[in-house]
């Protein structure tokens, strides 16, 4: 099968074009370094099936960070039949250097001048035909995001695939000496084909930046937006979640209970109290998660991430990290796994490891579900968003403490140079795609982990069958009892302990497990927990949930990205220890103060 590779500098729209070509679901965002590994899709081009490969962005052919290595290894191992080189038209006066470097490799190339819409808006004009003649390569102006110019380009790609693949220069590195030649060639082509106005007419970005990057308004704006997000979650999301949970309960009583009444008692219990209640309680959170990710999609596509890096770099530098580390913490709010992978853009291994050590402390969307559930059950509607906000502050604070404590073990001198792309807004299509990706992600986790988790919790709380369910005589009771000395000083009871154990697999299981343990669902579960715990116990439990080992997927990613068992164990041990210490200090402190 013929292969087309998408090459280009970071943030030029390779993944957007990939999605347009393949109908795929590559992650897109206005941040250099969203894609950090290969992704491939197949399409029918003319008579043949062709494989399209989306690659991480590269600045030149000499980079050696882990994401750039992915590209170099790919080019070394398989010469693509066609390289589709994506250039951001608005920045062609610098990005052409990469194009000329790639040209020297003697590959079959079609050039895409992407973001034609923005170029037009900014007043930049390019004579693609003339450039094509000067460079002797097919060149097409298009907009991967909105689709203009796409059909013509696709036709040219189909045509170009018919030519045989020329060989590629063996040693990529030997190209280095020719950079001087590139400079003059670049100047020559640009002079004849590109017109850039003296002042770019992107006033919107300049105006927004003067507020968002304001020396002393910048950070307050950041925290205010965060606070309003949580307010939004409780105003819009939480009622939907409660409604769905009620609907699940209604369905159970009116349809499932009568339907399954002929089954043996134990099996009924497993199906209804175990799987149905457990998974249903978690599934009720899907709309909140989708809403949350739509918000994240807007943030990621807006270009705000780079601004956050700008605002926070001064603090991060004192922690041995840089602005990108903070952005990874923000990305971790969605899910820790892509955030961990996103550190591949860092060249210094020490900085990469230090960043990977703090990311698991970032309050991910799975933990968010647990916290929404507990805050809604235990706090007044007015206090709930504040409680949630305080947990995010704990998340930041523990990340800062961790970096401070470990920065000398992971000393580095990585330079910090990063582009600030213009502000953008995702299309509805892009947002819908993101929402769908999250639902799919949830369904995968649900089928893989959550069902297994809740079934195991049910078994533990019901075996041996002679014992009263969820009593001290069951397996769960025995385990909870054995761990009691460890958790009692934190105000965490035996039921919650069992939930925490299974939360190790995936944090969503915590609420699913509680539904099973209490054999209740929906509102009833919330009020049962609300009656049993006071707010100090609940907050201590939430702190522990926030900090202890994130989930199996995160642990696996820590290992696969660091390739050091020692590091993975350090991360595991540290987060567990920190969770215990923080909960202990909070619980005992609050009790001492008389709460």
């Amino acid at each position, binding site marked *: 099968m013929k292969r087309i590779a998408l090459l280009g*500098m970071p943030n030029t729209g390779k993944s957007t074009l990939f999605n347009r070509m393949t109908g795929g679901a590559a992650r897109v965002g206005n941040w250099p370094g969203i894609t950090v590994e290969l992704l491939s899709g197949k399409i029918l081009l003319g008579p043949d099936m062709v494989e399209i490969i989306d690659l991480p962005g590269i*600045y*030149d052919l*000499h*980079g*050696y960070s882990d994401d750039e290595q992915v590209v170099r290894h790919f080019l070394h191992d398989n010469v693509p039949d066609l390289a589709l080189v994506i250039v951001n038209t*608005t*920045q062609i*006066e*610098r990005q052409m*250097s*990469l194009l000329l470097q790639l040209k020297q490799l003697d590959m079959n190339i079609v050039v895409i001048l992407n973001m034609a819409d923005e170029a037009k808006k*900014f007043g*930049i004009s390019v004579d693609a035909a003339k450039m094509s003649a000067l460079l002797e390569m097919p060149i097409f102006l298009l907009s991967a995001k909105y689709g203009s110019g796409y059909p013509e380009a696709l036709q040219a790609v189909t045509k170009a695939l018919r030519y045989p693949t020329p060989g590629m220069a063996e040693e990529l590195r030997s190209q280095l000496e020719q*950079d001087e030649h590139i*400079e003059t060639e670049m100047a020559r082509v640009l002079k004849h084909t590109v017109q*850039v106005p003296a002042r*770019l007419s992107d006033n919107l970005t300049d105006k927004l*930046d003067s507020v968002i*990057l304001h*020396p*002393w308004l910048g950070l307050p704006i950041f925290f205010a937006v965060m606070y309003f997000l949580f307010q939004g979650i409780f105003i819009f999301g939480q009622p939907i979640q409660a409604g769905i949970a009620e609907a699940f309960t209604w369905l159970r009583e009116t349809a499932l209970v009568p339907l399954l009444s002929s089954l043996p008692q134990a099996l009924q219990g497993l199906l209804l109290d175990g799987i149905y209640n457990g998974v249903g309680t978690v599934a009720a959170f899907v709309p909140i998660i989708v809403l949350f990710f739509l918000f994240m999609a807007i943030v990621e596509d807006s270009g705000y991430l*780079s601004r956050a*890096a*700008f*605002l926070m*770099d*001064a*603090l991060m*530098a004192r922690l041995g990290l840089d*602005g990108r580390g903070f952005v990874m913490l923000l990305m971790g709010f969605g899910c820790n796994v892509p955030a961990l992978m996103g550190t591949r853009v860092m*060249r210094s291994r020490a900085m990469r490891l230090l960043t990977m050590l703090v990311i698991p402390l970032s309050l991910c969307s799975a933990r968010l579900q647990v916290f929404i559930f507990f805050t809604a059950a235990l706090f007044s509607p007015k206090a709930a968003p504040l409680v949630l906000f305080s947990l995010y502050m704990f998340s930041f604070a523990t990340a800062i403490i961790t970096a401070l404590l470990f920065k000398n073990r992971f000393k580095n001198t990585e*330079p*910090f*140079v*990063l*582009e*600030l*792309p213009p502000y953008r807004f995702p299309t509805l299509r892009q947002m819908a795609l993101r929402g769908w990706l999250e639902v799919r992600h949830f369904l995968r986790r649900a089928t893989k982990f959550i069902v297994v988790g809740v079934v195991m919790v049910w078994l533990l709380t019901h075996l041996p069958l002679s014992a009263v369910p969820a009593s001290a005589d069951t397996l769960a009771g025995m385990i909870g009892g054995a761990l009691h000395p460890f958790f009692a000083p934190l105000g965490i009871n035996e039921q919650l302990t069992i939930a925490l154990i299974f939360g190790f697999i995936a944090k969503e299981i915590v609420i699913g497990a509680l539904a099973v343990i209490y054999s209740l669902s929906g509102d009833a579960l919330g009020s049962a927990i609300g009656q049993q715990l006071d707010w100090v116990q609940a907050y201590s439990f939430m702190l522990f949930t926030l900090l202890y080992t994130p989930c199996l997927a995160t642990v696996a990613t820590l290992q696969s990205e660091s390739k050091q068992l020692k590091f993975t164990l350090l991360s595991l041990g540290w987060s567990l220890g920190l969770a215990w210490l923080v909960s202990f200090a909070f619980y005992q402190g609050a009790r001492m103060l008389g709460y």
Partner: protein
Amino acid sequence: MRYFKFTIIMSATTLAALHPGDIATIVSIHAEEALHLRLLALGFRSGKQIELIRKASFSGPLQVRVGTTDVMLRRVEAAKIEVLKS
């Protein structure tokens, strides 16, 4: 003669010493290879105009504009870029 020399020294400075709103021309870049290549790819070349847009508070990074690209970089890195203020 002496006076003349003095003025040249005054206007040849590094990017780190510029103020927001200043426009200058890049003279040379004194960075190690990896950083140098990254700066090249981001459009930093001798002879090009560069504008300092803003400085972050608490000695944070600088935002500069080279050609059509906005870039942030730390003051340490900016000090490695020699510029001629215009």
